[in-house]
């Protein structure tokens, strides 16, 4: 097994195993320091970001919304975790020179052409659908896929199976064989 990949990254087995260790240490650290076992996740942060943005124009509406009340609009542990993902990826990609400005990914370009507008619209609309789904399922590939699986949660096995099965079908329909 190679330690480095062709694109100068780390072996996905190694990087993944280290992430597993990080997940364990993180649950332990949040329990010890914050008094509550907190697991890696990302999608609730988008609810809080939406609430924070909406609050600047419609404070009362956000305060009265049942879902915002349930998830509590504030910059919490997970919100900072998501900010950290940005910084960590930035540092890592700059340090090994894999940072690259990209407006339209090659696979997309082959299928839909070089238009940035089209890619932006696809990413935006896909994002809406995915986040409605993630909030309904109460988790994304981080919360269900990593944290839920590690805890052997029943919901995680079903959610991850749905994510991948439907993802595979839709990817085949949208990108087809021509993208290869």
């Amino acid at each position, binding site marked *: 097994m190679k330690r480095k990949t062709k694109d100068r990254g780390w072996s996905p087995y190694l990087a993944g195993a280290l992430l597993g260790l990080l*997940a364990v240490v993180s649950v332990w650290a949040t329990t010890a320091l914050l008094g509550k076992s907190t697991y*890696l996740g990302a999608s609730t942060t988008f609810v809080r970001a939406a609430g924070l943005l909406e609050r600047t124009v419609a404070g009362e509406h956000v305060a009265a919304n049942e879902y915002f009340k349930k998830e509590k609009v504030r910059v919490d542990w997970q919100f900072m975790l998501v900010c950290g993902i940005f910084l960590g*990826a930035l540092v890592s990609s700059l340090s090994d020179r894999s940072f690259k400005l990209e407006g339209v990914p090659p696979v997309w370009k082959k299928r839909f052409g070089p238009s940035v507008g089209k890619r932006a619209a696809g990413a935006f609309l896909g994002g809406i659908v995915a986040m409605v789904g993630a909030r309904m399922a109460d988790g994304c590939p981080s919360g269900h896929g990593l944290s839920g699986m590690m805890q052997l949660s029943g919901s995680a096995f079903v959610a991850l199976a749905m994510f991948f099965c439907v993802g595979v079908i839709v990817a085949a329909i949208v990108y087809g064989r021509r993208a290869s």
Partner: protein
Amino acid sequence: MSTEQILGLMTGVAFGFLLQKGRVLRFEKQLGALMLRDMTIFKFMLSSILVGMVGINLLSDAGIITLSHKAMNVGAVVVGGALFGAGWAIMGFCPGTSVGALGEGRWHALFAALGMVAGAALYAELYPFFKSTVLAWKNFGKIGLPEVTGLSPWVIIALFWAATISLFAWFEKKGL
């Protein structure tokens, strides 16, 4: 910043660093996984689950941490999971990787992240409707596989390890 925020930020930096080193943030890797052509994401996710499930269950058995299952609400997980899968395939990022991809310069991920903020706002508006429909179908509550199957978590972990290591061996044999 509070202790909570500093801890979150530090953990996130390490998380983002490992996602980037594992090269799983990119659109082509995400699509490669969904088109079953590039197994990088499967290798990465399953490796972290293998290590994490042992550590989490050890700490939980020792009474150091508590498990926090998400509810097995059938409508929510099945319909929500399907919607997520569809959106994921089109945008080519998941919530965590969109932010990471932005960090490594793939700025089209910004539109994905903005779409997801809009999706979250939309969900907040539709929540009362979902609560009385999809979310109200059947909820088994916060259950783990050990309770469902009656097996010890360590038996399930051993089986999961055996299956995953066999899968890895097959990936390597096939050069996937």
